[in-house]
């Protein structure tokens, strides 16, 4: 509320200083009126030519589109206006040298990405199919699995063959254990060793018995004692025996104890020998089984020596760990085991094949993989945290593994936002190898799986801003992504491209499931596309915003029970959309009221159009009589030299006499190096002590020779000024001076075109600064005469006179004339 009130007050001041708004005058009356508005010195008025309504908006004739409804149109082939970009992608994708990864900027819609993918698939179809990769156990180092590369389709075949062989081994081992031959051999070995131990004990027992000595079991072992009739002789009885007999019995007992100790001492050794013999038997049996089970896979992979090496490793490992495959852990108790059940196949897991990446055997193209959510896991795979799985079985592939040998499409923003994925990807591309699973610190995982050779072309989808960021952050990026493709935002507007745009709109209608459009409705959308491109000669290729307009329009059509969406539906839908979005937009305020040396400037840069009061103050030179000093305010207290303004003033007015003044501009070029036309006109108005109308704004820049240079997005700037004028009550005699070069690109709103046709608003195209001055002052700027001066009554004659006066005032300020140093240009 406060700002609104303040603005009203300012407008009152403007109204007090200028005549109140009147109904639109006739063209002849307007020049007189302008003279009244801008008049400290009354000068003859000149009416400059305004742009015609036809110049302000280029329309599309629905008749030229060549259809009655959009349902007749074929879906678009390819992407409109992106032929060059897609061609560049195709060339980039065809380069096989490392480092030629591709960055595509500006591809924002799903259709864009689909077209890129289709283009890459065309290249991929000419490439050989990728390899299968499998991980198998490394029998030399259990924690470092072996990676095997196989032709497409053979990875799965290898896994199936090994699984079949393992199943066969399981049942074959069981059969062998149940077999009479094996059991007989087992019993023979067991009996042999049992007999050796038992026979020794029995022989000792017989010896003991022959010497009347008992061999008894104790809780922990054996003991020997003198015996009579099967009973141990008591100590008292033994003591009463003759000493010689006692000594004899003791000697026998000692000898027996020694023999018994030796026998029992050897028992573990004998048991070890027995186990070794049984282990050897089992190894012999299992070796023949594993050899038979692997014979068929060996034939199948006879041409792959690395696979044969793996089979040899399996065979040796199975035989070396034969005990592992028996039903009981204790090898020596094999006959006691329950052989009714099959051997647990989990025991063979160590030998199974982890089919890491596998393709169909009839694959005939390189892979094209798109990873929508790239992160360390999705790109590099992961490792299953399981203590039961063999290390090589824990590895899970990522998108890089699947794309190996082909192409990988990634979104740059998602990629760089995901921590380790981005540096990991650059490292992998640089090294030409990819590890399996990436640890949290970006290094490879705990499993020491060897890195797989990486031959992938990454296609990174980015936008220009983000591309600049990542280029500045990591120097490796520039080396590795040296194919850069920018999708065009706009395409030249021709009858052909208008028809192509019609087909694109028809495709959008199909995707959005709305009813067909009349040709007029399509023409309206094409004009809208041109407006979005900010140039009547261009069409914007971004049609995403059309979807909501189409849905709004379709709702209107349905309410009116019509079959086709009409132009009016589109116009109304746009208006509804504009009002809904405009409600949140801040309305631009009218600049400060008119004053001497000020003018309304219209500037358009990346941040959008900007309406600003530009003012200048002129004083006699401060330091020396011949000083021409013009500065632009750049901040609270900062200034910079307005070089172009100085150059222009010197070239236009420095022919006959020196110019000595100091000027300060508070204007539009504070943040840039280039002064605008408005700033130059403000300086001229300040010199001429003119008060110029606030209802005319100036756009564009100039060069020192006085040519007005085009500026960007003039259409939006004009529209904004038009709205501000209408809001401030300038309903007539308002207008904008624009660079003439911008005229052909104007694509103004319909209401502005109507206002121009009605004469309540004007657009003046100016090619030179003098035209610009003439337009805003209503005077002829002037022509230099033979003596270097200007003709009487010209605007520049007045300025020239003013400059001379300023020069005199400067001279009077300095008692001692300045010393000539060098001639003025």
């Amino acid at each position, binding site marked *: 509320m406060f700002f609104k009130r303040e603005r009203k007050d300012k407008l009152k001041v403007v109204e007090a200083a200028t005549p109140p708004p009147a109904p639109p005058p006739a063209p002849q009356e307007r020049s007189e009126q302008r003279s009244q508005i801008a008049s400290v010195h009354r000068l003859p008025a000149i009416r400059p030519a305004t742009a015609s309504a036809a110049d302000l908006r280029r329309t599309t004739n629905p008749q030229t589109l060549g259809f009655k409804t959009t349902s007749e149109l074929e879906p678009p082939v390819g992407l409109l206006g992106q032929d060059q970009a897609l061609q560049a992608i195709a060339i980039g994708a065809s380069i096989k040298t490392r480092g030629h990864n591709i960055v595509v900027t500006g591809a924002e819609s799903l259709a864009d990405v689909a077209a890129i993918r289709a283009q890459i698939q065309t290249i991929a179809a000419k490439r050989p199919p990728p390899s299968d990769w499998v991980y198998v156990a490394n029998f030399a180092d259990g924690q470092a699995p072996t990676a095997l590369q196989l032709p497409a389709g053979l990875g799965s075949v290898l896994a199936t063959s090994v699984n079949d062989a393992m199943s066969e081994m399981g049942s074959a081992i069981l059969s062998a254990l149940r077999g009479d031959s094996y059991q007989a051999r087992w019993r023979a070995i067991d009996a042999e060793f049992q007999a050796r131990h038992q026979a020794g004990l029995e022989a000792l027992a017989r010896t003991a018995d022959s010497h009347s000595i008992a061999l008894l*079991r104790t809780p922990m072992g054996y003991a020997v004692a003198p015996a009579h009739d099967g009973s141990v002789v008591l100590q008292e009885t033994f003591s009463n025996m003759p000493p010689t007999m006692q000594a004899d019995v003791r000697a026998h007992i000692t000898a027996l104890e020694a023999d*018994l100790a030796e026998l*029992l001492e050897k028992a573990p050794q004998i048991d070890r020998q027995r186990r070794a013999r049984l282990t050897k038997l089992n190894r012999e049996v299992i070796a023949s089984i594993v050899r038979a089970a692997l014979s068929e896979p060996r034939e199948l992979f006879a041409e792959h020596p690395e696979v044969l090496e793996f089979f040899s490793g399996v065979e040796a490992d199975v035989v070396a760990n034969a005990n592992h495959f028996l039903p009981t852990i204790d090898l020596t108790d094999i006959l006691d085991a329950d052989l009714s059940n099959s051997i647990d196949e989990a025991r063979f897991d160590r030998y199974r094949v982890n089919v890491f990446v596998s393709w169909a055997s009839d694959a005939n193209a390189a892979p094209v993989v798109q990873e929508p959510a790239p992160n360390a896991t999705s790109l590099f795979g992961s490792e299953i945290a399981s203590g039961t799985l063999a290390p090589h079985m824990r590895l899970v592939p990522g998108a890089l593994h699947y794309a190996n040998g082909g192409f990988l499409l990634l979104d740059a923003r998602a990629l760089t936002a995901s921590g380790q994925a981005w540096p990991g990807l650059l490292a992998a591309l640089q090294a030409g190898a990819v590890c399996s699973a990436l640890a949290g610190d970006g290094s490879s995982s705990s499993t020491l799986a060897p890195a797989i050779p990486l031959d992938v072309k990454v296609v990174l989808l980015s936008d220009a801003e983000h591309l600049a960021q990542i280029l500045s952050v990591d120097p490796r990026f520039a080396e590795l992504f040296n194919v850069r493709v920018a999708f065009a935002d706009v395409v030249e507007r021709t009858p052909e491209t208008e028809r192509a745009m019609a087909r694109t709109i028809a495709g959008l209608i199909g995707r959005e499931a709305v009813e067909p459009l009349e040709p007029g409705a399509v023409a309206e959308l094409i004009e809208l596309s041109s407006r979005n491109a900010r140039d009547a000669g261009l069409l914007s290729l971004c049609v995403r915003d059309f979807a909501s307009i189409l849905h709004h329009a379709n709702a209107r059509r349905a309410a009116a029970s019509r079959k086709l969406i009409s132009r009016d539906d589109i116009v109304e839908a746009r208006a509804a959309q504009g009002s809904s979005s405009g409600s949140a937009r801040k309305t631009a305020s009218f600049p400060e009221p008119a004053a001497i040396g000020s003018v309304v400037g219209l500037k358009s840069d990346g941040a959008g159009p900007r309406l600003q009061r530009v003012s200048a103050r002129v004083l006699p030179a401060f330091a020396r009589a011949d000083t021409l000093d013009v500065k632009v305010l750049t901040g609270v207290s900062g200034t910079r030299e307005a070089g172009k303004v100085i150059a222009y003033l010197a070239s236009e007015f420095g022919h006959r006499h020196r110019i000595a003044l100091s000027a300060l501009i508070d204007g539009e070029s504070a943040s840039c190096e280039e002064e605008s036309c408005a700033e130059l006109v403000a300086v001229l108005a300040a010199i001429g002590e003119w008060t110029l109308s606030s209802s005319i704004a100036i756009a564009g820049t100039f060069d020192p020779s006085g040519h007005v240079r085009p500026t960007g997005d003039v259409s939006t700037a004009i529209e904004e000024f038009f709205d501000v004028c209408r809001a401030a009550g300038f309903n007539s005699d308002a207008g904008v001076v624009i660079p003439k070069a911008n005229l052909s690109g104007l694509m103004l709103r319909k209401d502005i075109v109507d206002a121009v046709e009605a004469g309540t608003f004007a657009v003046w195209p100016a090619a030179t600064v003098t035209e610009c001055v003439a337009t805003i002052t209503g005077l002829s700027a002037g022509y230099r005469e033979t003596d270097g001066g200007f003709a009487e009554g010209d605007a520049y004659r007045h300025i020239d006179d003013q400059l001379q006066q300023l020069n005199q005032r400067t001279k009077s300020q300095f008692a001692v004339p300045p010393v000539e140093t060098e001639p003025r240009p």
Partner: protein
Amino acid sequence: MIVHVAEAGEARGRVVLHCGYSPAANDAALKVALHIAKAYRSELEGLLVENRQILALAGHTFAHEIALADGAVHGLDAGDLQRQHRALYEAERRHITKAATVAGVEARVQTVRDDDIAALVRCCAVLGPWNVVVLSEPMDGSGSEKIGRILDAVQDATGVVTVPRRARLSKGPIVVTVEDEDRMSTMLRTAERLAAITGAEIKLLLTTAGDDELHWLEAQARLLVADNKRCSIMLNDTTSAPASSIAGRVGAMSASFLIAKHGGSVLPYEDCRSLTSVLRCPVFCIR
């Protein structure tokens, strides 16, 4: 008491588990004893014997014990020996009681200081005439001789069960080696009682010399078996196949029980090494 005995009017009889000095090594014997107790619906009597002879031996100043584990020789002290006994048998008592509870068999455990066989004689005399003795000591090559001595001395036992070192309970067939007609029905009934628990098949292996004798024995067996479909008959002529080969045949059958007459061709009095080397099941020896 043994139920069928009780039904016959004799309120006596138990399964007696005789434990010598290596009870811990004979867990299989305990399982077999419990299995038989269930089959006979009988109580289990654990008999832990402190061998008096060993205690007498410990009285000698020169007595030594040679460790079974490594052959180390050390002095034998009577006090130490008794402490070992006590600890060992207390653990065994708990073990037997717990296993019996789990198996649903009523059990009682007593510790006696006596000679091995004398202890059995007294125990069985107290419990009545229809006892089955299960020996905890593993059966070895000379085990048959010990079984003979037990059967001779312990008149109140109907049979002695011995368990080879690597025996285990399985669901294999119950093999009955029949060498004469007299014991055929008794042995078959015993087999049927054991089979009732596991549902095992019964194989009557008729073993005798000569065709005539064998066919006559077969005829008697078929009369006895009648329509028992779980019972099959096999023949073994000892004139063509020596008795030692029977052991191999029984071993190959993966039997869950072998029921044999003590002192016959399968389980001779003197040496049963050929049988113990192949057998993986308990042997129910009858007189």
